[in-house]
C-alpha cells in the first residue's frame, strides 16, 4: 500500500468512526428527550397493550378537557390548579404562571410537566391552541363519540 493510499484510508476510516459516533450520540439524545403523551385515562389505566403506567418524576405531556368549575387560583400568587378529563378518570394539574390566552373551562389543553403522584402533575408549560374549537387530536381520538361543545356555546355571551 503506497503512503498516499494509506493516508486516504486513515482519513476515510476516521470519518466513518466520527460519523457513526455522531449518529449514535444523536439517537441516544433523541431517546433521552422523548416525552410521551397521555390522556387522563391513559395516565391512570396505563398506556398501550402492556398498560404501562408512568413513574413518579417522569417528564410527560398530558392532554384533556378542563373540567368546568375545577380551576382553583391562589389568592396572592399565580399558582393555579385544575382538573383534566377525557372519558373517565380525572387528573389534577398544578401550575405556577400565566395561563395561555385561550385557556377556558371546557376547553382542550395540553400540559407539559412531571408526574407528582399517580393522578397529579406539576406543569411547566400549558398550551392551548388559538382556536376555540380546538381539541388535541389525541384527546379527540380518545373521546370519539362524545360531543364537544365550544366554550362560546356552552357559556352564552353576556353570562359571567
Amino acid at each position: 500500500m503506497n503512503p498516499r493510499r494509506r493516508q486516504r484510508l486513515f482519513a476515510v476510516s476516521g470519518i466513518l468512526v466520527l460519523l457513526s459516533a455522531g449518529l449514535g450520540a444523536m439517537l441516544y439524545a433523541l431517546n433521552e428527550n422523548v416525552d410521551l403523551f397521555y390522556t387522563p385515562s391513559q395516565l391512570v389505566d396505563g398506556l398501550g397493550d402492556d398498560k404501562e403506567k408512568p413513574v413518579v418524576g417522569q417528564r410527560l405531556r398530558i392532554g384533556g378537557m378542563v373540567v368546568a368549575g375545577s380551576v382553583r387560583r391562589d389568592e396572592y400568587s399565580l399558582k393555579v390548579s385544575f382538573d383534566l378529563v377525557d372519558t373517565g378518570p380525572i387528573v389534577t394539574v398544578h401550575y405556577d404562571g400565566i395561563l395561555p390566552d385561550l385557556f377556558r373551562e371546557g376547553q382542550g389543553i395540553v400540559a407539559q410537566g412531571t408526574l407528582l403522584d399517580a393522578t397529579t402533575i406539576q406543569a411547566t408549560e400549558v398550551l392551548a391552541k388559538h382556536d376555540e374549537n380546538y381539541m388535541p387530536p389525541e384527546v379527540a381520538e380518545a373521546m370519539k363519540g362524545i360531543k364537544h361543545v365550544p366554550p362560546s356555546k356552552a357559556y352564552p355571551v353576556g353570562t359571567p
Partner: protein
Amino acid sequence: MIAELGHLALCFALVLSLLLTVFPLYGSYRGAAGPVLLARPIALLLFLLTSVAFGALCYSFWANDFTVLNVASNSNSLLPWYYRMTAVWGSHEGSMLLWVLMLSGWTAAVALLSNSLPLILQGRILGVLGFVNVGFYAFILLMSSPFERTLPFFPVDGRDLNPLLQDFGMIVHPPLLYMGYVGFAVSFAFAIAALLGGRFDANWARWARPWTLAAWLFLTLGIMLGSWWAYLELGWGGWWFWDPVENASLMPWLVGTALIHSLAVTEKRGTFKSWTVLLAIAAFSLSLLGAFLVRSGVLVSVHSFATDPSRGLFLLFFLLVVVGGSLLLYGLRMRAVRSQARYQLFSREVLLWGNNVFLLTATLVVFLGTLYPLFHKELGLGSISIGEPFFNSIFMYLTIPFALLLGLAPWVRWKQQQVQPLLKPLGLWLVGALVLAVGVLSMYQTPSANVALLGLLLGAWVTMATIGEIQQKAVQLGGVPGLFKLQASHWGMVLGHLGFAMLVIGIAMTKTFSVEKDVRMKIGDSVELNGYTFMLTDVYTLNGPNYGGQAAELEVFKQGERVTHLHAEKRFYHVTQSVMTEAAVHARLSRDLYVALGEELSGPSWALRVYVKPYVRWIWLGSILMSLGGLVSLLDKRYRRKRNPTAAQTGEETHA
C-alpha cells in the same frame, strides 16, 4: 366576475406552464432553436397571468366581496385595508396563490436574465422550471382554488382574519419566506439541466451561484422575520420554538447554506460537482417537504392550515416525483459529474467539505426530531413529543467545531496549505478572542456561565479570524487601499461570517442571561428584575376597530432613573372570539425589556410576564448581516460579465 377572471387566468397559466415544459425541453433535445426561443415569451406571459389572478384576489379582498369563499372565511369589513391585503395570503388557498406568483416570478426572471447562457442550457432550465410550475398550478386548480364562491347564500360579513395574523409581520414574513423556498426551484432547475446535458464546468457554477445566493438570502430574511414576529406576537418572549413548521424552514436553509459553500468550491476549483448537484436537489426537495408538512395536516403547529388529506397526498406524490426523478437522473448521469481535481488533506476544499458535513448533520438532526414523533405515532407506539433540550444540546455541540472551522477556513489556501505559517497569526487571533470573550463575560461577574463563555469565545474567534484575514489580505495587496481590489464576493463572505458570529453570541447570551418572572400585580405595585424596576401605573379598557380588551401602562426605572414607558395590550377580537397578547418591548442593542399582559385576577389584579433579555437583538441583526453578505456576494461583477463565446463553448479549464 373579477374572481372568475382570476380563475380563468390560472387555467391559462396551467396550460402555459405545460407548454413551457414541453417546448424548450423538446427544442434542446432536438437542438432546435425555435422552440427554445419560445420559452421566454411563455415564461413572461405566465408571470403576467399569475399577476392577474393575484390581482383579482387582492381586489376581492379590497372590495369585501364576501361571495368569494376565501374572502368570507378570512376577512371582515371591520378589518383595516392593509390587513385585508395581507389576508390574501392568510389562508392555505391564498398562500398557494402567492407561492405560484413567486414561482412564476422566478421563472420570468430566469427567462429575462439568462441571455448569457448557451441556448440549449436555457431551454433545459426553463423546461424544468416549467415542470415545477405545472405541479403547483395543477395543485392550486384541482384542490385549493382561492376563487370558489359562496353563492347563492353568501354571508353578510366575513369570519375575520385570525388575530395572530393581524400584524406587521404578516405583511413581510410570508412573501420573503416563499421567495426563499421557491427560489431553490431555480437552483434545482440548474442542477437538473446540467444533469440532462451531462456538462458541469466552472461556468455552470458561476451561473447557478447568484440564483442560489438570492434564494438563500430571501430565506434567511424570511426565517429571521418569522422569529422576530413570534417573539412579539405569541407573547412568550421566545424567538425559536423548534416548532415542526419552523424546522421545515430551517432544513432547506441549512442545506442551502451548505449549497452556497459547495458551489463556491465548484466554481473556483471545478470539484465537488456531484455533491453540489445533490445539495441543489436536496434544498428544493426539503422546500417541498416543508410545504407538505405544513399543508397536509400531519403535524400540529401554530402554522398549520385547515387540513385536508387529499392535499397532502398530492404534495407527497409531487415530492416523490421530484426526488425520485432527479435521483434516477443523477444515477444515470453520475459518470459525467465526476470531479478530477486533486487536493491535500489540509486545504480549503477539505475544510469546506467539513462545513458541509456539519450543516448536513444539523439538517439530519432537525429532520429526525421533526419526523420521529410522526413515525412513532404511525407505528402505533403512542404519541410523543421531542423536547427542546434535544435540539438545543445537539446544536450547541455542532456549533463548536463548525465555528472553529469557520474562522480557520478563509485563511487556508485551495489545494494545499502548510500548517506552520498559519500557527503564529492564528494563535495571536485566538488569544485575542479568548481575552475579548473573558473580558466581556467578566462584566457580568458570573464565571459559571459556561454556555455564554463558549458562545462569546466562538463568536469572538470567528470575528477575530475574519478581521485578521482581511488584515492579512490588506498586507498582501499593499495597505488599506489594496482592499478595494478584493472581490465583492469576498466581502460578502466576510459579512456573512461576521453575521454568524453575531448570531452565535446573541443566542448564547440570551440563553444564559435572560431572566423571566410571572407576577401578580395591582395598580401601583412594582417588581424588580435584573436591576430594572417595573411599576404598573394603569390598566384600562381598549377600544380598537375590530377588537376590545385591556391595556396596561408601566413605567420602568433603573437605579431610580426612569428608563422608559411600556404599553402592553391584551386584545379580544369580537368576530373570531379570540384573545391576543400584544407584548410591550423596549429594545436596545444590549438588552430587551419585555412585558406581556396576562389575565385579570380577583383583586382587581393582573398577571404579568416580565422579561429582561440581554443581546436578543443580536440574533436578528446577525441574520440581517448574513443576508446582507449574500446580497453583496450576489452583486459581484463576475456574475454580470457578458458571455465569452469561446469560454462558454469549451468550458473553462480549471482542473489542476
